[in-house]
């Protein structure tokens, strides 16, 4: 358990992705600290475990309008899985537009339950294979910020997020 978590965090650091750790009860404070305003987000209850977690006590506008999304600096969404050896996040595509909220912003804050860290890509793809077969689902395996080298040097922040921050929600505590 510790080792896949450690390898995940090590991989995130190498990607330039910042990480903070919290518990369910402290999540709102962690989100508040992680966002740059204006911030938008999606309701989290369907992505973080079974307990409903709200963003009420944060500066995040949940379920924003398209214009508010375009004006936002930060988008807050859940992540379905983490991939230990790559530092990847598996982002879902929901009817609540998590795809838009994680994509049309400069800073993406992803909330990931510690239990959802898979040791490696093989395990993550096997899990997705199972889910997709059941649900016809879709997902993005997102690794670090968006990037391009097309303009003569590596630049972070091409069409997608320039910065990514992961909040790991620990079990119990």
């Amino acid at each position, binding site marked *: 358990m510790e080792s896949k978590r450690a390898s995940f965090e090590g991989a995130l650091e190498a990607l330039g992705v910042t990480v903070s750790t919290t518990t369910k009860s402290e999540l709102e404070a962690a989100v508040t600290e992680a966002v740059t305003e204006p911030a938008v987000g999606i309701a989290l209850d369907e992505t973080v475990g079974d307990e409903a977690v709200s963003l009420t006590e944060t500066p995040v506008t949940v379920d924003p309008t398209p214009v508010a999304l375009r004006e936002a600096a930060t988008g807050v969404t859940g992540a379905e899985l983490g991939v230990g050896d790559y530092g990847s996040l598996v982002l879902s595509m929901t009817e609540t537009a998590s795809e838009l909220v994680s994509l049309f912003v400069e800073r993406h804050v992803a909330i990931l339950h510690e239990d959802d860290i898979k040791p490696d890509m093989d395990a993550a*793809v096997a899990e*997705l294979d199972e889910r997709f077969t059941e649900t016809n689902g*879709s997902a993005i*395996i997102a690794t670090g910020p968006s990037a391009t080298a097309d*303009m*003569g040097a590596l630049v972070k922040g091409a069409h*997608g997020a320039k910065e990514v921050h992961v909040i790991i929600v620990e079990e119990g505590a």
Partner: protein
Amino acid sequence: MATADELRELMRTEGAAIAENTQGFNAGRYDSVGDLEDYEALKQAARSIKEDAIAELPDLLDQLTETIEANGGTVYIADDAADANEYIRNVVDDRAADRVVKSKSMTSEEIEVNDALEADGVDVVETDLGEWVLQVADEAPSHIVAPAIHKSRESIAELFNERFDPDEPLETAEELTHFAREKLGEQIINAEVGLTGANFIAADTGTMALVTSEGNARKTVAATDTHVAVAGVEKVIPTVADLHPFIELIGRSGTGQDITSYVSLLTPPVDTPVVDFTDDETPLSEFDSDRDFHLVLIDNGRLDMRDDEHLRETLYCIRCSACSNSCANFQSVGGHAFGGETYSGGIATGWEAGIEGLDVAEEFNDLCTGCTRCVNACPVGIDIPWINTVVRDRINRGKDTPGDWLVDGLTPDEEDDGAPLQKRFFGNFETVAKLGSATAPVSNWLADTGVSRQVMERVLGIDPRRDLPAFERETLVDWAAARDSQVDDPERRAVLYPDLYTNHVQVERGKAAVKVLESLGVDVVVPPAPSSGRAPLSQGMVATATDHAERVTEALEPYTADGRDVVVIEPSDHAMFTREYERLLDESAFTDIAENSYEVFEYVFGLLDNGASIEALSTVAGAEIAYHSHCQQRTLGLEAHTVAVLEECGYDVVTSDVECCGMAGSFGYKSDYYELSMDVGDRLRTQLRDDGVQNRPVVASGTSCLEQIDALLERQPRHPIELLAT
């Protein structure tokens, strides 16, 4: 075919950017795959998934069609480009779309869908930044993954400043990227149709994988209400789980990234709501996700390729660009010379021959020298040099026989219809060498006269700036026949294969090899034997090469049957015996020669490892040396043996790490390619002139490499075996 002038111009204008980028990707690949514990197993898995998928393709296409239709999408299998374009135009027309935004897709370039849509008055916008640069500049891609690789930051800045006249002139890569993001961002949210490619499509769920780094493919799908995906029929794989090895390999193999920023796994139509980006009142979740999805699968020659035993492997290609980046010639000229209508790099010969035809493949096929550096780089193990050889053979056979006077004497070959004269000359170099030795030194004097060189240039296209090999009057075989074995009670018995160059030109290295082997207790014989067929094979003369292969195995069989090992000095011939002959001979003949053949240092290494004493060889105390291995030798994993033996003999060894010296057999002699060959060689020269290397004597394993290094440096290089002889 690009002329010497065209190649020179490309190297001048695009060469620096191409070289920097491709070499960066290539170095990144080595680093990145080096971190993978199970790299070879992943490659095997990827290969096997592709092999099976292409074998089962018709069934998989049926299954995929059923799945996508059950999901609510439409599948259209297009026979060719026109068929595909007509379908896509109808989709765009039905949607009454003014704008189509595209993420990068080579298949869409192949069918030239942009032109078709623009003719209907549709605004087509490339959203991949590299593709957009080319769209603005009206240029063609020079690389299958990084299409604008030939453009420097400065030239992009100049282009944007001129075209868009921004308030502040753009300069840095960051400014250029930000500008493009803003500009394209506005266009994406105002588009109706999103056009993407697909790297892989799983037949079981209809899930497609899109491998990108910028996020433009995600936006292209998320911001539009009509998604059209265009892909070749070969992109279908059975299941989502099968994606695993490809996800781990594709970025590493191409640009050297462990993984690209985004791997989108989409099972269209996706749930993301279709929003009006100007709406300031409705929450995102209240928009519905009505989205049309059309998968357009393109045949365009692929199903015929599937039935073609030599081109079929091309369909395993995942378009990662490893074969481009690891190719020494590509590193110098890029895809504008080393490419056809759409595809570039080593594998492009297969694609262009299958999709466009031999005439397009012919335009660049000769730029593959058969060095094999792409073979281990390819994540699905495609024998790319073989595809290039087969296509070259087919191109040759499409030519008229050159009924020239020179051909009759010099080309006693098996080509029933005409390879061009230059190819037949180099392909039959054995005949030249035999004549050369028989009449040396007169032949050497004659060959060196101005008149001869003019004729050679005019008739054969041999560049006058190259020194010609000087033939020895006494061949190695003659020398060996005239002496007795020096070993009374041999540990092992071997037949030293008298390759063409060792026998006629580099006779000294042959003598050194015999002496070294004898010092280590090996009984050595050097019988006459035909040349390996490497020369005709590299000219695409497969029938002649096969004839050589059969005669070589016939000549060596009595010796192997008698328990002798086959020791080979020339790495390109050793590679024939252990690799290429598999294509030319029946299985038992191939196994017999392949299993009994050893590169000379591999053999010496084995002898030392099995108890032979290093004291029997000439040793030194820490003498410095620089070693350049041979491209095919490195592909076979045999560079390390030479280095290990030299180190055991006391040498301090520095090795080069360029992919190829640029000479590549006859390639560097050809007038059209001389300057390219020297440009490639320049990278080796730079390494051999580095601090700490510049004063070291140079040794190299290959004949061509020795000739090239001789031309590049003042230091006269030798084969390393010559250092070991007492």
